[in-house]
């Protein structure tokens, strides 16, 4: 059997035998490529920064994030931080906003205020 043979004329047994011969010519099938295990050290450090940990308090809910952000602003304003210390919230994620906030407002205060706003389970 070659590339242009009419395989419709072959019986099933002849066809299987011909395939076996072809496999011998080609060689063994290469082993499936091992999937690259994600290196633990390269796994995204989801809680590595205070901002990421505060975002995690909202448990992935965008509604809770929105509420937490607004309540956090209210609490910090009541503690005497001036309006100018707060970055604008538009066009940035909650985490990015927190990173910017904590350059002006002490991170300890932001973290404590955020954890106090989330009900303890």
């Amino acid at each position, binding site marked *: 059997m070659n590339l242009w043979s009419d395989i419709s004329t072959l019986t099933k047994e002849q066809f299987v035998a011909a395939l076996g011969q072809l496999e011998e010519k080609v060689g063994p099938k290469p082993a499936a490529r091992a999937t690259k295990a994600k290196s633990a050290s390269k796994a995204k450090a989801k809680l*590595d920064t205070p901002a990421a940990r505060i975002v995690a308090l909202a448990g992935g809910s965008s509604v809770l994030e929105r509420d937490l952000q607004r309540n956090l*602003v209210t609490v910090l304003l*009541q503690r005497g931080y001036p*309006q100018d210390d707060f970055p604008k919230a538009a066009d940035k994620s909650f985490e990015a906003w927190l990173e910017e906030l*904590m350059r002006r407002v002490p991170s300890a205060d*932001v973290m*404590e205020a955020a954890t106090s706003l989330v009900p303890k389970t």
Partner: protein
Amino acid sequence: MAPIKPVMAFLTMKGGVGKTTLAANLTRAMADIEKRKILLIDADAQCNLSQLFYEADDLDAVSTRTIYDALNGHKIMKPADLKRQIYKNSQNGSEIDFICGSFETFALAVNPSGLIERQTSERFRAFIQDAQRDYDIVAIDTNPSATMITMHALDVANFLVAPISFDKYSMRGVHLITSVLSPKYGWQKNPERVRVVPNRIKRPTTEAEQRKLFDAENRIRHAFPDLERSIVPNYIRQSAIVSNEARQVGFLADQRVPNREHLISLLNDFEQVAIDLLATQRKAFGDAQKDKGASGSAIQRAFASIFGEPMVRH
């Protein structure tokens, strides 16, 4: 009225938590972030901070002018008489001057008479008041025990930085300082005047380890609620670079190490904590008007400005 300037005491009740390394490298990080003129004082009779900046042979040479001279010299000393510049940032103009420690301060602490104690206390207070005129920040590294000079440092300080590891004993030491001493030093009750810095924290490599670390932090917060607003959520990570074996003389930022990436990561840790310190000091020592909390219409205006929408009352 002249603004009050921070006098930071680096203090722990438990040795070996990295207080001296923290004192040196946080002040450097602060100087690199914002223009500051800082006076760093080694008030520990063990002179660890002095040994961090000078080789043993050089230490003998610089020991002609030390903090001991400010406490017990025959002449009244001013900071300018004893300081040595150890850092200048040519980009932002920050400077760090250093006053060496002396083993002789130990002699003052052993069986001091009431007269010596009063005299050294008054001299140290006057010395630090002079320093506050010349510098934006005064930082004092102290001995981790209640020696006379440590108490003098607390007498003049108005800001406390205490490193901890995430264990209750470490935190209890800080709680002891603030609860036992706060009747005498009222400012210690103010969370804006105390900074508790998690130091030498093992770097997690998985999310599970990170969550465990965050849980450890939360347990500490819950166990010491009066210090919650003082605990800095940025950690200084454990690193072989700062081990005694590997340590080179000088600031970490100036070290020559094979693993530069590791050093940069550690310097970033110090930078994040320094950002918190600078922001806290702006609040604690800033304009009195800013300390008054916003209320009512001021909050609503701020809200509209920050979020671009009015505040919704529930």
